[in-house]
């Protein structure tokens, strides 16, 4: 059963315990200065954004059909059966195509290091493997970040919207975006206010490039046969012309 995270912004009190727990689990520093930073970075894999008295978390959405896993030339990213999209640092060559391609611009880079790596939330894949919830969900005092089976979380999110329709935007962000994501979001204000674009669409992006890539074997076989044929005809013609010229002497 695939796991997921349900973040309900209406329950969030901006205590940033999720940020702290995330930093701890990933071996990253955490301080007041870092807590004040309002953007994701290589040292801040999740952030609670503030907009007046409204809050919204940003973290890796851990897509069902992840773009990063599709574009990575060395297969460093993998979608696991439990839900997390993991990153194998030992493979990474640092081309940063994942950063360019991610529809949520989640992967971040260690720009200041001489030998940098990509950093992103991996939904605590190691903890999940041990049957534990993600560090952020465990640390959350209000239940704004909830960990569970994705299907069950979807049902719960639908129920919450149905019970309090005026309290929520009528949309579960991540249910269908780019083919669905393991992280699901609920909000009382439009998601766009926090940079979650509606324009990402519901189609999983990897199909856009795979459609072309899957044609290539045909292109190669047909193209090589065609070129070989043209060569055969043209060189034969040259050879015959040369022989005729010679016999004509």
């Amino acid at each position: 059963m695939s796991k997921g995270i349900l973040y309900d912004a209406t329950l969030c009190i901006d205590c940033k315990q999720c940020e702290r727990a995330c930093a701890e689990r990933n071996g990253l520093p955490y301080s007041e200065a870092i807590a004040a930073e309002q953007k994701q970075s290589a040292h801040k894999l999740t952030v609670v954004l503030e907009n007046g008295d409204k809050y919204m978390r940003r973290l890796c959405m851990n897509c069902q059909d992840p773009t990063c896993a599709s574009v990575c030339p060395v297969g460093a990213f993998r979608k696991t059966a439990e839900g997390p999209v993991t990153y194998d640092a030992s493979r990474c060559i640092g081309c940063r195509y994942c950063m360019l391609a991610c529809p949520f611009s989640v992967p971040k880079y260690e720009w200041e290091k001489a030998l940098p790596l990509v950093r992103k939330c991996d939904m605590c894949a190691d903890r999940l493997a041990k049957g534990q919830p993600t560090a952020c969900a465990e640390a959350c005092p209000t239940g704004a970040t909830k960990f569970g089976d994705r299907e069950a979380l979807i049902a719960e999110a639908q129920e919450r919207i149905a019970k309090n329709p005026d309290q929520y935007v009528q949309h579960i962000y991540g249910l269908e975006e780019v083919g669905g994501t393991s992280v699901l979001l609920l909000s009382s204000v439009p998601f766009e206010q926090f940079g979650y674009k509606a324009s990402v669409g519901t189609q999983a992006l990897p199909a856009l490039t795979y459609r072309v890539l899957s044609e290539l074997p045909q292109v190669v076989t047909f193209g090589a046969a065609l070129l070989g044929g043209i060569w055969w005809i043209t060189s034969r013609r040259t050879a015959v012309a040369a022989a005729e010229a010679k016999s004509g002497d």
Partner: protein
Amino acid sequence: MRNFRLTFWKAVLGLVLIAGAAATVLRFVEGLGASTHLSDSFPWGLWIGFDVMCGVMLAAGGFTLTATVYIFNLESFRPIVRPTVLTAFLGYVLVVVALLFDLGRGYRIWHPLVMWNPRSVMFEVAWCVTLYTTVLSLEFAPIIFERLRLEKLIRIQHAIVIPLVIAGVMLSTLHQSSLGSLYLIVPEKLHPFWYTPLLPLLFFSSAICVGLAMTIFESSMSARHFGKHLEMSLLRKLGRALLVGLIVYSVLRIQDLFDRGALRLLAHGGYETGLFLLEITIGLALPIVLLLIPRVRESSGGLYLASVLVVLGFVTNRMNVAITGMEASTGVHYFPKWTEWAVTASIIGAGFAIFALAVKYLPIFASQSDHSAAVEVPAEEVLELTHAGS
């Protein structure tokens, strides 16, 4: 070094290489953050946009011309195969050098060869560029063999040249188009002037145009600076082929822009519109008009001008895809740091310098040695081989 003379261009090259060396130190000691204006919002800059995307495009003459001579047997073009293959080979080597600067961990550049992800366009590009650079080195090898008088190796190379050329053309078709496919994955990030499902086709067809233009350009340059004989009849033919290529590309491009309704965005004006119009004007409109005028098309100066415009126009196109078109969605304005310019300029400078050295010391141009006799098999032998095969 007895005959060394410091000319203006040598002085410029020297200064560029000094700046490049300083930038190289900064890049590898302090990392990408200190040596570039790249950021989490803008992860690909000048080194990918110009050095890789344009570098590969500018080297496209290699596959275009080898196909013309070896596959289509248009023998008259043979005298310019060598300089073109040399340019292509140099181009790809320099692209790899640029990648070593841009990759966060360049020492792992070989990883895609053993850690596969066939769903990735980048994986496919990595394989094609590796294989094609190998093919180019083998296409280039006879020039070295001749210099060293290795007759046997020349004959072996000659025996495999046709499969080699076919492999080179197919590999080029794949990765020239795939550089466009890289951007198919960012429909929401790339500006509609440049995002289209036709990206792979447009990149491929423009690579052919640029390949032709570069061949004209470097033949003209070689004539001016190395005193090589200019094969005007060939350049005229290339000029006509370039004209046809540009018209085909324009039809594809304009029709696609029209179908997607992107031309309406011209009314909005602004930064993207300006650079889009620049690209269309210098890369398509001006050279097409120039080449349509017979007097221009037949003159060496006119062909030179048209080819330079095409090269600059499509360099602008690649930069627009990689940089201009990505800025609005990322919300940042990217302008390369001095270090990025210095590395790029050094790579270009090194390219020119190595080309000049190669022309000086290797039998690149026909006038230097009777190279065609050395590798060409007499016609009757070919006929016999063909008979034996049938």
